[in-house]
């Protein structure tokens, strides 16, 4: 059983920021094909800002909720765009899901993770199959929940989430976009992975490593 405190969560943002930054050019290139070529920039900017904002907090004196809300706000203000409200809402919902806790156990962490996916869903109103980051986040959240329910620990649960996110992102190639910028392309969006789904895999994998590694 892992125990996650605010310092660990701050480390999680540092890990995501590093992963997304390394992935920046690929994400921009994916977005260039069916969008406006800036998704890597937005994610890089957003997670760098979130990392810096939470690093500036005194982790010992900050509860996970405050930390996640701080990350949300700084991500949003640094980015705007689509990713801004989506990830900001994700973290705000994650924050609400762990309200009152000072540390998170496996179930708390999975609850936070699922709340994040729900936040993205509520903010963007994308249904599965519309070729958005939801197509990675929704199956990932479901897989994590099922793994935990079947008695798995956080490492395995988030491992399942990564696998599901990967499959979900892969599946966006066969979808016609119905939300976001790519939705105007019609059939021309076919065959290309959605950049937001691609970055979701990177984010979730970084979360897995940071929270369970």
């Amino acid at each position: 059983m892992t125990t996650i405190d605010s310092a660990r969560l701050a480390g999680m943002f540092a890990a995501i920021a590093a992963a997304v930054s390394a992935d920046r050019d690929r994400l921009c290139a994916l977005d260039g094909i069916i969008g406006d070529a800036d998704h890597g920039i937005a994610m890089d900017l957003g997670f760098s800002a979130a990392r810096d904002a939470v690093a500036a907090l005194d982790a010992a004196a900050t509860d996970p909720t405050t930390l996640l809300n701080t990350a949300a706000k700084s991500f949003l203000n640094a980015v705007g765009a689509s990713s801004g409200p989506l990830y900001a809402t994700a973290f705000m919902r994650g924050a609400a899901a762990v309200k009152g806790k000072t540390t998170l156990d496996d179930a708390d962490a999975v609850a936070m993770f699922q709340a994040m996916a729900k936040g993205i869903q509520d903010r963007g109103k994308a249904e599965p199959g519309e070729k958005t980051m939801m197509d990675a986040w929704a199956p990932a959240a479901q897989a994590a929940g099922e793994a935990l329910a079947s008695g798995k620990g956080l490492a395995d649960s988030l491992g399942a989430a990564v696998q599901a996110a990967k499959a979900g992102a892969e599946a966006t190639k066969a979808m016609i976009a119905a939300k976001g910028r790519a939705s105007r392309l019609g059939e021309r969006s076919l065959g290309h992975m959605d950049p937001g789904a691609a970055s979701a895999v990177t984010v979730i994998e970084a979360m897995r490593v940071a929270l369970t590694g």
Partner: protein
Amino acid sequence: MQTKKIINDGNRAVDEMLEGILAAHPRHLKSIDGSSRSIIARDGPRQGKVGLVIGGGSGHEPSFLGFVGKGLADAAAIGNVFASPPPDPILECAKAVSGGAGVLFMYGNYAGDVMNFDMAAEMADMDDIEVRTVLSTDDVASAPRDQRHKRRGVAGNFFIFKAAGAACDRMLSFDECERIAGKANDHTFTMGVALSPCSLPQTRRPNFEIGPDEMEIGMGIHGEPGIARGKLKTADEITDEMLDRILDEMAPARGDKVAVLVNSLGSTPLMELYIMNRRVKRRLDDIGVSIHATWVGNYCTSLEMAGASITLHRLDGELQTMLDHPCDCAMFRAG
């Protein structure tokens, strides 16, 4: 090899640009202390007037902040390059221009902008500022006719914001301003064509690939793919292809009046735009549609992208009054 740009640091480009804009236009524009991405008209916002807040990503200059000024928009919220501004600067704009008669949010219909402006509207509501939103959806290439509400807002913003700004400046009611803004959008039709990509200051890599003899019809102003890729054609053929679609939707009758905008996406020079305008004039003459006014130049760009768009704005008496209403902005004057 990175594309060439006269910049310092790609990550600082938007803020440095804003500093340069405020330096150039102190009589027209100011920013809000502590919210440098909120640009307000020095003259315009006033008690009892519906406030007009526009905005969107950077990289489309003179959109959006060039259209901030007396008679047009009261404020613009500025995002990163091709990225909606976040809610905070939008909210600051709303607060700064609210005259107690309501605030209109107007911007192009993009998922990112909708989410951020909606969040800002909710926050404004908590501050007792009533906000209504009119999205521009003038890009006929971006969704079928029966899904007009899904279309993108592009260069036609120029006419749509102009009409709304005039309505606000004439102290019309919130309902009337909203109605006129919506009508202006319904009367505005744009098609674009792109010839070469642009590159974001942060990456300095072309944002899409296109063959040396190709063009993309219907491309969006952020380089989003359009309707079709094809061989580059002549100016008349390109103009016809765009006009055919626009006219098909607008379905003008003989004697109808329009305003015309031939807009460069960035690096297509005036010579080419005016050659296109020549064809527009001939085509409209042929079908007995009269041209009330024409604008040709850089109005809604995509950094240094090569290409152009054509917008027709169908006028009735009311929209003509709004179009002719004077405005005095940092980068645009009329009337």
